[in-house]
Structures are given as C-alpha cells and as structure tokens.
C-alpha cells in the first residue's frame, strides 16, 4: 500500500498530475481575476480612493502650517512655551507671518484653519494682516493694540497645534471637545451635540430595523407562500413604492401626517379627536421613524422573501405531524431557516438608516435630526475636515458593528437574495 501511493500519478504527456492540475487551476484563477479586474478597478476608483481621501482630510489641513513658516519654525524650536504669556520672539514671528499672508493672500485660509478650533479668529487675522507691515517693535504691544484678543492662550494653543499639518483636532471637535485657554476640555452643556447625535442615530436606526422586521416578516411569508398570480400582484405592491422617488415618498408622508393632513382630517371627521387636539405626527421623531420605515421596508422584504421562498413547506408539516404546536413549529423549525434573510435584511436596513440624510432633514423637525445632517452642514459651510472626521467616526462605528455581527451571526450566513 505504502509503495503504491508513493508512486506519482502522471498525465498522458508525463507530467506529474499534481503539477498539471495546479497549472490548470492557476490559469483558471488568472482568467477569473482578469474578469473581475474591471469591477475591482471600479470599486477602487469610486469607493476606496474617495474613502481614503476623506480619512486623510480628517487628519490633515495645512492651511495654517503652509502660510506661517516663521511661526512654524518658532513653535518647532520652543515646544514647551507658555501659551498664557508667549515671548516677544513669538509675536515677532506672528507679525512677520501676518505680513507675508497679506502679500500672498493666504490670510483667509490661515484664519479659517484657526477658526475651526478658536471661533472668532478669521476677522482678527484679516485685520492683523492688513496692519502687519506698519507695526514696529515691540511687536507684542503693537499687535495687542490692534486687538487685545491676540493674547488669548486658547489662540496660541490653537496656532501651535495648527502649525503641524497633521492633527487630531477634528476628531476632538467631533467628540464634543473644545479648545479653551487651558487646553482641550469637554464642551459646555449647551454646546455638546455630536456624541449625543451619534447615540441617537444608532438608536433610531435600531428602532427602524426592528419595526421593519416586524412588518416585513408576515408580508414576506405571504409573498413566499401565496399562489403565483396573487404573490406577483403583492410583489408589485412592494416594488412600486421602491421604484418611486425618495422625495416623492417623503413628501407624501408630509401630506398624510401633518396637522392639517389627511390622517388628522379623517380622525377629526370621524369625531375621534376634536379640532383643537390634532395629533402631531410630523416634524418630530415620529415622522422620521414612520417615513424612514416606509422607505426602507423593501430592503427587509426582499432578502426575507428570497430566503423564505426556498424553505420547503414539508419541514413545517413534518414538525406538526410529529406533535409540535404551531408556535413550536414556528420557533424551532421555520424561524431558524429564515435567519440568513433576517440577518441580511437587518444589516441592510440598519446601515442604510445610519447614513440617512434627506428624510430626517425634511420631516425631522427639531428633534428628528441625525448625525448625517450635521455632516451635510459642515460640508456646506466648508469645514470639510470636520465633516470628514464625523464621517470617519461613523465609518469606524459601522465597521465595529459589522465585526460584532460577524462574530455573533457570521457573515457567511448572509443571504442577500
């Protein structure tokens, strides 16, 4: 026996079979790789590169570092300076840089960069730069005469930090920290917003996912078990809204749910509520949840349906014939088989909900805002680095959830359709 296996099997042309097989597989693999190459290239170009660029933006901003060489050099040489009382040389370097900014028209960029962590400084930079070339030593007194705010310790801390193009400042701001005279501290009660909104975004997304699952499960079951003609009709009812514009669906909900809307009019007409007691169902969290659940429902129904369709009905019948109650049959036999669909649908709905932007903006009112609305605000107000930092934190949170999900459910159990 041992001798027989030690003799190598050979192909017709005398090559070892193992090597021939490996060569053939390599060829097949190379061909497969060439086939997916266009997609890989596409994903790289439209997905990975922009995300990488966004993450780079969140830690890099050279607006100040590039336009204030004298200060950068001074901060480099004096890392342990006292921000509460910078010496005359620091002010001399600052005045020199301000004059240079005026000449090169970089005042705005540098001031904008400092303004991100120390509000109110853009106009100081502009005013200081205009007068810089006329200032005479001692520069400290001269500059403080232009604007006493130049002595603020927070400003010097901000400039020292911004003199390095790479910074974690934007992540600190996104974590509700403020640059005060004593360094980075937790923001005041009236200013903290980002962490709260992160928490709320995940909570609302979780609620929407659960509601979607509860609503989608019976519908998908019906779709999977009804005769073809009826299930096709039902499928159209599911898909028709799916194909309708998101904006149209969102504004339809406004027409339905607002205070003078159809639902309230009907309730008043039926005498269930009086005209003064109309329900507030729009421009608050209720409106956001209702509209987003409706918009995202098909993403739950479709994966569930594709899984339920292939579950043989004989399993449930077998369970019943062996004496299981209908609840036990559902819990022990049917439900476990739908798990891949539940997992896929929940993941899809949750991740889509976390990034939702336009629906909360339109129907959210005061307390229906989610974190993506603030990302959009900073995009439009040109603080792209902060927007990138918030988005980066969102991405990290999603990746953590994905990892947890993989550990608990298993990504290979996912079935998207």
């Amino acid at each position, binding site marked *: 026996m041992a001798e027989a296996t030690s003799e190598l099997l050979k192909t017709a042309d005398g090559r070892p079979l193992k090597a021939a097989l490996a060569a053939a597989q390599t060829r097949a693999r190379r061909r497969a790789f060439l086939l997916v190459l266009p997609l890989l290239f596409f994903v790289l*170009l*439209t997905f990975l*590169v*922009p995300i990488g*660029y*966004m993450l780079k933006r969140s830690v890099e901003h050279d607006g100040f570092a590039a336009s204030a060489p004298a200060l950068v050099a001074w901060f480099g040489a004096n890392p342990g300076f006292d921000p509460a009382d910078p010496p005359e040389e620091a002010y001399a370097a600052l005045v020199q840089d301000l004059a240079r900014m005026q000449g090169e*028209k*970089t*005042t*705005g*960029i540098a*001031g*904008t960069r400092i*303004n*991100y962590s120390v*509000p*109110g*400084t*853009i*106009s100081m930079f*502009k005013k200081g730069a205009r007068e810089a070339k006329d200032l005479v030593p001692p520069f400290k007194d001269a500059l403080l005469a232009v604007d006493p705010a130049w002595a603020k310790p927070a400003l010097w801390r901000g400039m020292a930090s911004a003199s390095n193009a790479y910074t974690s400042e934007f992540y600190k701001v996104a974590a509700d920290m403020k640059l005060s005279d004593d360094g980075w501290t937790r923001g005041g009660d*009236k*200013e*903290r*917003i980002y962490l*709260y*909104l992160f928490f*709320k975004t995940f909570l609302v997304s979780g609620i929407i996912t659960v509601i979607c699952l509860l609503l989608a499960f019976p519908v998908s079951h019906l779709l999977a078990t009804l005769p073809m003609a009826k299930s096709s009709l039902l499928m159209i009812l599911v898909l028709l809204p799916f194909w309708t514009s998101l904006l149209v669906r969102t504004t339809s909900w406004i027409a339905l749910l*607002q*205070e*003078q809307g159809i639902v309230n009019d009907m309730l008043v007409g039926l005498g269930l509520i009086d005209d003064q007691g109309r329900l507030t169902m729009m*421009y608050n969290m209720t409106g956001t949840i209702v509209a987003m659940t409706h918009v995202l429902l098909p993403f739950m129904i479709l994966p569930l349906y594709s899984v339920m369709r292939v579950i043989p009905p004989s399993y449930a019948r077998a369970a019943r014939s062996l004496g299981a109650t209908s609840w036990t049959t559902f819990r022990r036999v049917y439900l476990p088989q739908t798990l891949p669909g539940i997992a896929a649908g929940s993941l899809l709905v949750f991740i889509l909900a976390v990034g939702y932007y336009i629906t909360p*903006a*339109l129907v959210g*009112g*005061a*307390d229906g*805002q989610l974190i993506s609305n*603030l990302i959009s*605000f*900073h*995009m*439009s*107000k*040109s*603080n792209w680095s*902060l927007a990138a930092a918030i988005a980066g934190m969102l991405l990290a949170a999603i990746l953590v959830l994905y990892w947890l999900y993989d550990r608990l459910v298993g990504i290979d159990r996912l079935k998207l359709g």
Partner: protein
Amino acid sequence: MKKILVLSTALVGVAFAAQADITVLSWGGSYGAAQNEGHLQPWSAKTGNKVTMVDAPDPAPAVKAMVEAGNVTVDVASVTYADAARLCDEGLLEPIDAASLPAGADGTPAAEDFFPGAVTECGVSTDIWANIYAYDTTKFPEGPKTAADFFDLEKFPGKRGLIKAAKANLEFALIADGVAPADVYATLATPEGVDRAFAKLDTIKSEVVWWEAGAQPPQLLADGEVVMSTAYNGRIFAAAIEESKPFQIVWDGQTYENEMYVVPKGAPNLEQAMDYIRFATSTEGLRGQAALISYGPPRKSANADPIIYKDGKTEMGPHLPTAEANMANALQTSAEFWVDHDAELNERFQAWLTQ
C-alpha cells in the same frame, strides 16, 4: 485624487458646459428663473454668446468642490454674501476689478452708484433680499405689526415657522427682545447676548415648525400648518401676488443682505464671465431681474424710476427690502460676524434644538 471626489459634480457640469460659451450656476426655482430671464437671455441676445444656467440647492459648496478638484466648469456663480466672503478668503474666487463696472444709467460712476458693501473684492451684488416674517390675514384681521409680536403667543396664538439655522433667527430674536439693530452683532459677540437670543427663542420653541428650504414657508402658511412664519421676502411676494394668497409681510425686524455674482478661480471663460457680470449688474441688468422677483437692486440709479412687475400693474417699490418704509427697523446681515461664528453658533443651535 481630488478629481474623483467630485466626479459627479464635475460630470454634471461638463455635460452642460460642453454646449455653452459660458455657464452660470444659481439656485433654481423662481429666483433662477428671474436671473435667466433678466440676465442670461438679454446678455446672450446682446453679445451673441451662448449662456447656460445650471442649478444647485446651494452653489457655494459646488464652487469649492470644483476649484479644489481643479476642474471648474462654471464661469459665474450666484452665492450669498457670507459665502462670497468665505470663498474669497480661501482663495477660491477670481478677483473682480471694481473699476471696470459700468457707470449708472444716469452717468454716476459705479463706485458711487452701488450701495455700500455691494461690491467686494471677489463679488458684485445682484440684489438685496431679506428675511422677513409673514402671516395669514384670514387668521388675524388685526395682524401682528412688530418683531416682538411674532413672539407674543397670547395675542397671536398658533404655530410659527422658523428657519432651522442659527443665522437670521438669533438676530431676529434679539431685535424682538428690544435690542436696537445697530447693537445686535455687538450683543451676539458676547456669551450673555447669545444666551439672551436663545432665551427669547425658548419662549416660542414649543410652537415652532422648522423649515429648511425657501419654498416651505409659503406652503406651511397655505396648508394652515402655521399662522405666521419667517421667510425670504421674494417667496411670500410670489405667493401673494401670483397666487393671490392672503399673506401679509411684516418688515419690522427684517435682516437683509446682498446676493453676489462671483467667478470661481480657474473659470474656463474668464473674459466673457466678467463681461456677463458687468452687464448683469448694470442699471439695466439689475432692473431686469428686479421686475421679475421682489429683491431690491443694489444701485441707486436702478431704483430711481419705478420698476413694474411682469404682471404689468404691480409696482415693485413697496415690496422691496430697500424701500424706505421697510427699512425703519432693519438690520444688514454681517458677513464678517457669520464667517467667524457660523460653526460655533450652529453647534449651539443644534444642541439647543435637541434639548
């Protein structure tokens, strides 16, 4: 790499720019239509150049994206005063030679003809618009008259519409609280002033419906969702005159500002873009737009004769933010203040909303 980030923006721009000699980026809606009819078409007829208008919900971020990507496809953009200042600060706009702007129709040199602040380093004003508030006259025959009345829930019960942003609301709240318009920004620059503005907003917070797009306030008023709402004055004018809605504007406590034409850095047709701006901001160009929407022309010479609305009978004068009667308790929005404090106050505002 930057190119990829704004691929979609740029592609849309390319698709349009390939057709036209110059491309103007504006806000769409009735405002874009007024610019199209008042500026683009007459300029095109006069010079023979083709000109195309493209829309963005807010042109400023699009301009920033294009310039940073090095792929500028529009030649002229219409942006708010604060955005014009901000983009100019960041070096994203071409400077505009103020001396090249044409004199007024009556011969007044441009430097004296334009209102103060209407011409900046990188932008020229096309109109002056205002944040006002309007109410439904069927709800209140004896309507509110002052900014303070907006906050008076006892005399004028019902829901109010307010823009979901710090800008405009904080100024309005302070004026309603009795701060003189001249002192508003000095007050807002102090922490106590900001607290005072939010305290005033607190008094109506439970009754507020928040809006974001300019088209919403007339809709909210028409639906009866609110009894009064802050709004852009042109939108209320259009609803009241064009659609005969029972809306009345209250000018007390209005905050007005210039809307600017700017040229993105690296615009493909710089010379023609400048020529377009010279035409659009001439006395004739400004009057052309003002006859189509109730935003005031920023030149003295353009206001000298009555402007008649396109319906042929409504005189625009009393409907403009710049009319003397409307300026009694008015405040010019400070671009400098908001460039400095927008992010900070908006964070506070968002936090206040969720409390």
